[in-house]
């Protein structure tokens, strides 16, 4: 019987292991989701009323959000379309948030408490122009005070109640550019100031009720304007002239235009070119001259006078009315590791209302923007709070000399992601407290048992969740046996590198990219620089961060080497050449630093690290290094090879010239490149062969030098509605990047992009739009090696008459054949990725980022070209699914379950040490992380495995054995007595 028990055990175990998708109480155990908004552009405070204090912000990620001013949490937010950039935000009637977007052509109102859209109005726009939004602060519900919007050459007055356009005025006349729309408080006259060809100032007076032009005045200015403008009061603006050395005050009181010129040299000695800064201060403007910020007061008659000057690294807020007709503004400047916040009265700059000094993390950089808000303290004096936006895009609220809350908004614009290991747990360092008593252990498991049998009370459920988090030790900062704990390194557009813990998503360290050559380099990409696992074990692993000084591709690059464990920069260098492409080579030096080639715009490549050892390794492989470039605009793909050292031109021995090896030119009149893709270089392939149902062998064509290219006819490159099926076709190619040989070409008539593809092992899956069916389609192409097809015979293998050991070369034409199949897919797709595991044994899942910002896990078996309508019995046993015309969308297989990864841009997968499990990290405006087991966790017990149940069963069985034994003994005895 005991033997029977042990025979039954595996059966029981196997049934316990199989866990299907997520149960609701498992959400958040292995995954986390973080919500962000992006770098704040505008902020409007809403603190007047009692109740919740909020700040309404709009960001560079096209997000409009309402934040809790106390804690910085998001009340609500909306992510607008990628082309729907927000130009202005305001609060109307005290209950609606008004946003102007799409270059002043879309006006929306959102309900302030819950973010429900109330109305949406499309406004006329004729051409690109400045867009200006002015929302009356007036709380009165009155059509006399409409929202005035200027955009696209039209001035509109829109009722805040329902979004109705009350009137519109055409300003699209030749050469006329509207600069400012001003409405003096309480007046019904709107002043529209604009320039004609930057040489004539024109002022219109418009009745705000009817939109009638009451008066129009114009006056020519001989010098011409530069376009920089600052409005200082309701009837005056200050403009820079075209030489940027004279400030011109334009007064338009009562419709009369007057100019008053003041050379900057009169205000500041030995001045250079000036620049008008954006903050709006009443009767004053801020000008940047000679790297200093100069405050210029505008007198009653347009007379200018310098009142103060500060260092140029000062950020300022707009001025704000405080009590008694006085206006105040906030300024923030740095001093060492501290920042100083000052609030001054505009009229008396010596009168500092508030002076606070706050310790600031160096890795946040400088202050970019300040938004100020005041409140009345209990003692009736004015209190101030300031919302500041830092250089790394983070958002902080300062109040009473402290940082009340901060949000790491840099993480909303992640550009590249890689993963890194945590340090190994050292001996003698006990990280977790050793398991409590046996009783507590049992108690925990009984609780879990109750949970799985749905007998747990709500308190028990909480206790179980706590226990699970605690017992898993998932937040420790050391490596674990299964490789579940890792660091996710994320580089943001603001040039900051974050290390996030996979356990709970907290920031372990962060580092701002620095450069001597420029103020703020942009982050481009991340590479594994040094991953010691054989030699140099005493070294910490490090990553290479590639940045660029400016947005142009010819701008000089910046390299930074960062220690992964500590987050400290080891070295950084301004490399002096541009960065077009970074090629990690498959060679490492004796300290396991990976060799990298960086190609620049002039056709040279540079070798890193710059050591003689690296150079000698590189010289040995000189002939075997190939790479390709894609010129998507011209439709050309070029293959390159190393030529020689560029010693003739520069003395740099790590610089090499290259030579073009092949080109593939797509005819520009019929094909346009829209997508290119290669395999991940670090992908592991477990087996080269695939066994068919009829015991037939197929050899996968596994090559790292395959490039997938998708082209569409130029007409079909636009959006979906713009082309008919006859006009558009999609062609995909598989190109060998060593020889430029086209291995496979597949054309889809009546289809168009956008193409989203994923390339893994020997297959490509791509998603595109079929115009005839008006549906999205997914096609899989698998590529197999024909030349090895004869190696099926066992005798051949034994006698050595096979070609398995023959070297694979790109010089001979590979005999390949492909299999492909297409399916419909019911949703638009933003990105596709594939799971990756340590050894590549586990079956793969496609991770499809859908248009709804969710991630769908789709088994690779659904996109298998061997699927047929009626699979045979043998095929069914192998797991081939009967062919259906569309791919299933099973709601339970959304890995993001009830979350949305707003603004989803990319999905990154990384293997854990456990073969069954893979890390999945998705980034967009939000971040999401989870662990996936595509074929279930066949190599470990799940978290919710109940040891208590197992123990109880064993105890019961043992007891039963004894009881039956005793019974049978008794029986036997009585038999004997009979």
């Amino acid at each position, binding site marked *: 019987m005991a033997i029977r*028990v042990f025979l*039954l055990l595996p059966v*029981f175990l196997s*049934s316990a292991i199989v866990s*299907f*998708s*997520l*149960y*609701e*109480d498992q*959400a958040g155990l292995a995954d986390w989701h973080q919500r962000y908004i992006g770098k704040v552009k505008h902020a409007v405070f809403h603190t007047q009323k009692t109740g919740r204090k909020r700040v309404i912000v709009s960001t560079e990620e096209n997000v409009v959000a309402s934040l809790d001013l106390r804690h910085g949490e998001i009340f*609500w937010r*909306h992510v*607008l*379309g990628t*082309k*729907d950039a927000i130009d202005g935000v305001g609060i109307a009637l005290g209950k609606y948030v008004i946003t102007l977007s799409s270059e002043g*052509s*879309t006006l*929306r109102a959102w309900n302030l408490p*819950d973010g*429900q*859209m*109330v*109305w*949406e109005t*499309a406004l006329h726009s004729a051409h690109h122009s400045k867009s200006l939004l002015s929302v009356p602060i007036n709380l009165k519900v009155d059509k006399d005070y409409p929202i005035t919007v200027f955009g696209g050459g039209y001035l509109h007055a829109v009722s805040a109640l329902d979004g109705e356009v009350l009137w519109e005025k055409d300003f699209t006349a030749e050469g006329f550019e509207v600069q400012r729309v001003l409405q003096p408080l309480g007046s019904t006259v709107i002043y529209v100031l604009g320039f004609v060809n930057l040489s004539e100032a024109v002022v219109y007076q418009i009745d705000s009720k009817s939109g009638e032009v009451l008066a129009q005045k114009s006056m020519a200015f001989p010098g011409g304007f530069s376009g920089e403008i600052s409005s200082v009061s309701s009837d005056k603006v200050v403009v820079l002239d075209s030489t940027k050395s004279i400030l011109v005050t334009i007064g338009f009181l009562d419709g009369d235009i007057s100019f008053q010129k003041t050379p900057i040299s009169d205000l500041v000695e030995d001045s250079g070119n000036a620049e008008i800064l954006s903050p709006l201060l009443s009767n004053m403007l801020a000008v940047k001259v000679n790297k200093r910020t100069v405050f210029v007061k505008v007198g009653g008659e347009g007379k200018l006078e310098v009142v103060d000057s500060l260092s140029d690294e000062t950020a300022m807020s707009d001025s704000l009315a405080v009590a008694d007709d006085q206006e105040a503004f906030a300024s923030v400047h740095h001093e060492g590791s501290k920042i100083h916040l000052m609030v001054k009265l505009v009229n008396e700059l010596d009168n500092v209302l508030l002076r606070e000094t706050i310790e600031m993390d160096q890795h946040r950089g400088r202050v970019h923007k300040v938004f100020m808000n005041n409140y009345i303290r209990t003692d009736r004096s004015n209190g101030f709070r300031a919302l500041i936006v830092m250089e790394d895009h983070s958002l902080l609220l300062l109040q009473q000399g402290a940082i009340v809350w901060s949000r790491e908004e840099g993480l909303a614009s992640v550009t590249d992601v890689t993963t890194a290991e945590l340090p190994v747990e050292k001996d003698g360092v006990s990280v977790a407290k050793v398991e409590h008593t046996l009783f507590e252990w049992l108690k925990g498991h009984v609780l879990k048992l109750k949970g799985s*049998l*749905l007998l747990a009370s*709500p308190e028990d459920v909480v206790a179980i969740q706590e226990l699970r988090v605690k017992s898993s030790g998932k937040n420790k900062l050391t490596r674990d046996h299964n490789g579940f704990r890792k660091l996710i390194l994320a580089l943001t557009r603001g040039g900051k590198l974050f290390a996030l813990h996979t356990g709970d998503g907290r920031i372990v360290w962060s580092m701002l990219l620095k450069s001597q050559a420029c103020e703020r380099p942009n982050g481009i990409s991340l590479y594994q620089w040094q991953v010691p696992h054989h030699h140099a074990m005493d070294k910490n692993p490090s990553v290479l961060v590639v940045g660029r000084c400016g947005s142009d591709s010819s701008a000089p690059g910046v390299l930074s080497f960062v220690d992964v464990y500590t987050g400290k920069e080891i070295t950084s260098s301004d490399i002096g050449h541009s960065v077009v492409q970074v090629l990690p080579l498959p060679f490492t030096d004796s300290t396991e630093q990976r060799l990298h080639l960086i190609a620049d715009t002039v056709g040279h490549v540079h070798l890193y690290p710059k050591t003689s050892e690296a150079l000698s390794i590189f010289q040995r492989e000189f002939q075997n290094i190939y790479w390709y470039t894609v010129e998507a605009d011209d439709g050309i793909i070029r293959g390159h090879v190393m030529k020689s050292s560029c010693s003739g031109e520069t003395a740099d021995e790590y610089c090499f010239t290259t030579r073009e090896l092949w080109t593939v030119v797509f005819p520009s009149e019929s094909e346009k490149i829209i997508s290119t893709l290669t395999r991940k270089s670090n992908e592991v392939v477990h087996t080269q062969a695939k066994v068919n149902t009829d015991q037939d062998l197929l050899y996968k064509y596994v090559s790292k030098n395959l490039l997938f290219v998708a082209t569409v006819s130029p007409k079909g490159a636009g959006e*979906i*509605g*713009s082309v*008919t099926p006859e006009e558009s076709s999609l062609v995909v190619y598989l190109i060998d990047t060593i020889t430029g040989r086209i291995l496979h070409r597949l054309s889809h008539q009546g289809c168009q992009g*956008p193409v989203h593809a994923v390339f893994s092992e020997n297959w490509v899956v791509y998603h595109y*739009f079929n115009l005839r069916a*008006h*549906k999205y389609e997914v096609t899989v192409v698998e590529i197999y090696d024909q030349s090895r097809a004869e190696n099926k015979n066992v005798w051949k293998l034994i006698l050595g008459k096979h070609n398995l050991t023959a070297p694979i070369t790109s010089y001979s034409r590979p005999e390949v054949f492909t299999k492909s199949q297409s399916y419909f897919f*019911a949703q*638009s797709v*933003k990105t596709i990725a594939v799971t990756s595991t340590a050894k590549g044994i586990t079956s793969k899942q496609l991770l499809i980022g859908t*248009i*709804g*910002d969710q991630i769908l896990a789709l088994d690779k078996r659904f996109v298998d070209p061997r699927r047929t309508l009626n699979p045979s019995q043998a095929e069914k046993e192998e797991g081939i699914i009967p062919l259906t015309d569309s791919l299933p969308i099973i*709601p*339970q297989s*959304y890995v993001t*379950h*009830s979350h*949305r990864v707003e603004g989803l841009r990319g999905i990154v997968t990384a293997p854990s040490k456990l073969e069954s499990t893979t890390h999945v990290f998705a980034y967009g405006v939000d971040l999401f992380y989870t662990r996936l087991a595509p074929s279930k966790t066949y190599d470990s017990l799940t978290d919710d495995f109940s040891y208590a*149940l197992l123990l109880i*069963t064993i105890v*019961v*069985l043992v007891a*039963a054995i004894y009881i*039956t034994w005793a*019974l*049978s003994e008794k*029986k*036997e005895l009585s038999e004997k007595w009979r």
Partner: protein
Amino acid sequence: MTQIIRSSPVLAFIGLQICFIFFASTLTCTSGSEDSYTITGRVKIPPSNVIGHTAKFSNVKVLLNGGLKITFLRPDGYFTFHKVPAGTHLIEVSAMGYFFSPVRVDVSARHRGKVQATLIETRRSLTEMVLEPLKEEQYYEIREPFNVMNIVKSPMGLMVGFMVVVVFLMPKLMENIDPEEMKQAQEEMRRQGVPSLTSLLPGAGASR
């Protein structure tokens, strides 16, 4: 979350609020100048008791041509796309907890922006542009409620059940066996010298 599921009356109320059942309205209407037209429609989410997540109108997005234009719903469920050129377009609705079929929308240039809408998944053409979810989506597996049968059916339950049978029913069976036959069997057993416990099993099988 579980609490929400259980409190169905509350949900039904929310559901009622969500569903704004208006009488049929002439929709799919457009107006526009020259080459740009307007597509207007409405999203209707039926009340439901099964949803495990509160569906809010404020979290619904309507997307034109794969996200090229995004708009949101008004409180009454209406949405509008402005400045849409004539041609064949695709409208998708993204709402957590619901699956909407993509909609093919033909904006006719000849008929001054007349709009024809067809549900792509079901190939049903819409007379008015009212989009309703094809099905609800449940993102979590539903835990089976506590059930004695589940326990019994589980391998452990089967084992325990088997033991119970052996312990309690077997002696009863033994009693029914003819004493002479029993004696014979015991004789046999003694000859074979096997332990008594295991020999009970074939004996029981024979008696059936």
